[in-house]
């Protein structure tokens, strides 16, 4: 069968796979009605990530499931529907009914099943591992992660002499990642990467730190995706000079991840507009 229904305690997860024709016996509608009745749940997520194609007949099944849920005042979301599936949905005039979200987290936010609370180490870990990896492979520099701490987002001062900043956007939050270091470390990195000994930070070499921020986010987003955070990247920017500042998004907390190197400390700052990263699933 191209579908499987799993009870996730708070909601029903309908996993679609392969090609869904609508000719399945028993049909999705029949199986869903029984599962919904026995579970008492009225929230459903239709996971489409492994489904390549949906026939118009199967859209009828999905709409029947939607009707069943609405009759109990529940909610339903699709997650990860590809372009061809979304095209079939639009062609059938139900794209405002079968609402697709890019990530599982996006659907859970719609259902009110996630809320801001304490530190979510799951969000921070991808940034820790990706920072260490990028510096090891690209800068030939070993980093040792230190204990993260929180600073107020209203504190704009960055910890180093030069910083690479990149904005993070997703359907559930937006924010910034900044990587900051002293001039001494930066000069060493330029030497390691380009083989050039430079006297300091200049407009000719400062783009390097933006690229590092870009790579760190690029690596982190794969792991973030497995946690339900689907993020998009933007072009990085670079700032430098003593006591340079950053304007982070929002007014929440800012997580600072320090990393020790033999040349001093590198800081990574992560700030989100609605407390993601300081979030956990509601009990």
């Amino acid at each position, binding site marked *: 069968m191209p579908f499987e229904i799993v009870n996730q305690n708070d909601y029903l997860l309908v996993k679609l796979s392969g090609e869904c024709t609508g000719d399945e016996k028993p049909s999705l509608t029949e199986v869903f009605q029984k599962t919904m009745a026995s579970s008492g749940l009225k929230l459903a997520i239709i996971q489409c990530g492994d489904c390549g194609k949906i026939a118009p007949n199967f859209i009828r099944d999905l709409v029947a499931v939607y009707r069943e849920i609405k009759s109990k005042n529940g909610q339903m979301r699709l997650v990860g529907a590809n372009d061809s599936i979304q095209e079939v949905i639009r062609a059938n005039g139900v794209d405002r009914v079968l609402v697709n979200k890019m990530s599982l987290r996006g659907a859970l936010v719609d259902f009110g099943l996630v809320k801001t609370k304490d530190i979510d180490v799951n969000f921070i870990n991808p940034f820790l591992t990706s920072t260490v990896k990028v510096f090891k492979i*690209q800068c030939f520099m070993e980093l040792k992660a230190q204990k993260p701490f929180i600073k107020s987002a209203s504190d704009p001062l960055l910890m180093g002499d030069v910083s690479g900043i990149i904005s993070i956007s997703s359907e559930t939050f937006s924010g910034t990642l900044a990587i900051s270091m002293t001039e001494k470390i930066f000069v060493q990195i330029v030497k390691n990467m*380009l083989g050039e000994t430079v006297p300091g930070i200049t407009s000719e*070499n400062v*783009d*390097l730190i933006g*690229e590092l921020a870009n790579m760190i986010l*690029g*690596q982190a987003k794969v792991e973030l995706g497995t946690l339900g955070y689907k993020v998009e*990247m*933007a072009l990085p920017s670079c700032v430098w000079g003593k006591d340079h500042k950053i304007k982070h998004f929002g007014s929440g907390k800012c997580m600072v991840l320090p990393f020790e190197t033999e040349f001093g400390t590198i800081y990574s700052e992560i700030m989100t507009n609605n407390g993601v990263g300081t979030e956990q699933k509601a009990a």
Partner: protein
Amino acid sequence: MSEKLRILIVDDSKSLRTMIRGFIEDYSEIEIFEAGDGEEADVILQEKSALQEPIDLVFLDWMMPKVSGFALLQKIREMGGIFQQPIVVMLTAETYAEQINACVKYGVAKYITKPFTKDDVRATVEGLLVERGLRHAV
């Protein structure tokens, strides 16, 4: 004497371009060109093709100002007639499977994610040099 292999490095980071150039510039059989965005790269590709000195290999970043690497890739693949298609290798921090699949659909020979190593870049160049008969396989 065989013609040299023409390589175009497209990345908005000058430092990254310098680093990639540094990884391969010791090959005597290659000629290296650089572009800082997709628009600049498009001009070089078309000019070199029109002069019958086509670019053989492009190392292409994704996220760039003006014209992104992916938009350039799509444009390159739509060009026909007298335009001579280069081999394209993506060299990017974009890591989602759907992005990789989209590039494969447009015929990229390889998708290298940043951070990358000297070997990642050299293996690509060396493979092409051998394929074009400009260098013997080791």
